[in-house]
């Protein structure tokens, strides 16, 4: 049977891609951020997951507001990156896991989550930055990725409790898949930040740290926030917490925190990194 063996949360901002492309990891500005990652990379290299289920939001590469899926699931064998308009380097294709993707689609839609199912999907920095952070030098081709895309751009957006429930349904779907696969779930984006308006630059360190604690030990507390609450407490783009909450929903068994780092600011955000181990309760 497929098993979820762990989870990772990480920022996905484009500035990280630029820093890596320009070899800035050891500069004073970036070092406290990148220093958090080696333990996570080591764990992934030791555990050798077959599949990454990756929660992210599209920032106007695949989806425009002509048609904006609330939740979208990739079911392709391969995903491509493309020019996002600001010159971060386009990177090699990402390998998909079509069979498990369709299994998740079948189970989760039957449970009442009306996903948009995508056989072609250009993936932006929201998905590619986390992969390149875990496997620098774009060495992620061996791992199969299932993109789960949440609308974090246009209100109405799915509420945290709904993202959590979707994660739970995905978790159950994975557990019912007959093939022996090791699965790790990534929740990307966040934490507190605001890019737009006179309030741009807002970061709430205290909230970010509390959020990381609660994500581990009492995730249902986080589902009590509405997206409007998150805007107030964590900034307009603080709604990206939905991806972390969706990830956490997938972990229905015992969760142990193995590693964490919090550093800010990177670009305009507070960046939280968590590595969680997950054991199924059979």
């Amino acid at each position, binding site marked *: 049977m497929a098993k979820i063996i762990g989870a990772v949360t990480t920022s996905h901002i484009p500035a990280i891609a630029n820093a890596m492309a320009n070899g800035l990891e050891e500069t004073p500005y970036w070092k406290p951020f990148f220093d958090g990652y080696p333990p996570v990379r080591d764990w992934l290299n030791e555990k050798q997951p077959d599949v990454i289920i990756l929660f992210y939001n599209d920032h106007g590469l695949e989806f425009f507001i002509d048609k904006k899926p609330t939740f979208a699931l990739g079911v392709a064998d391969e995903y491509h990156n493309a020019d*996002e308009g600001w010159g971060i380097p386009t990177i090699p294709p990402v390998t998909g896991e079509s069979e498990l993707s369709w299994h998740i689609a079948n189970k989760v839609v039957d449970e009442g989550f009306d996903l948009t199912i995508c056989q072609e999907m250009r993936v932006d920095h929201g998905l590619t930055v986390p992969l390149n952070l875990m496997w620098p030098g774009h060495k992620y081709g061996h791992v199969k990725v299932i993109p789960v895309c949440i609308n974090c751009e246009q209100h109405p957006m799915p509420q945290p409790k709904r993202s959590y429930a979707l994660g739970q349904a995905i978790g159950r779907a994975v557990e019912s898949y007959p093939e022996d696969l090791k699965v790790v779930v990534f929740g990307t984006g966040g934490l507190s930040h605001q890019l737009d308006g006179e309030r741009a*630059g807002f970061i709430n*360190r205290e909230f970010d740290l509390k959020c990381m604690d609660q994500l581990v030990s009492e995730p249902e507390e986080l589902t009590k926030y509405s997206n409007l609450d998150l805007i107030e407490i964590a900034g307009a783009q603080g709604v990206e917490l939905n991806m972390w909450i969706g990830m956490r929903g997938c972990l229905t068994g015992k969760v142990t925190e193995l590693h964490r780092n919090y550093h800010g600011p990177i670009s305009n955000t507070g960046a939280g990194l968590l590595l969680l181990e997950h054991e199924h309760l059979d």
Partner: protein
Amino acid sequence: MTERYADREFPGTYLFDGAMAKKGYALNKMCYSFNEQQARDEFNADPEAYCNKYRLTDTQKKAIFDKDIIGLLREGGSIYYLAKYAGLLKLNMQDIGALQTGMSVDEFKDMLVKNARGEV
């Protein structure tokens, strides 16, 4: 008038909902096109003609020419698409933050550091 998603107001924040998505549709569509190098080149060759091609309003065009990010938000711009316009202008998110808050870029960066340390 398109119904707003929420009555709740957030100072200095422009909630991007149906009303804004409708108002800013042409503006965001133009900015979305900037994903393509060819579109960026075409805009740079003749910004006004490019704005006219997407049928921007006079207010939207003025905000584009003035690099008035707050004005663009008021006109229905989504920060995700405006970021692509910023990319075309070779501005990063700290430059955009400075433009919106009326700070210098260094002042804006200092504020980010203080916020992230929890000093504010």
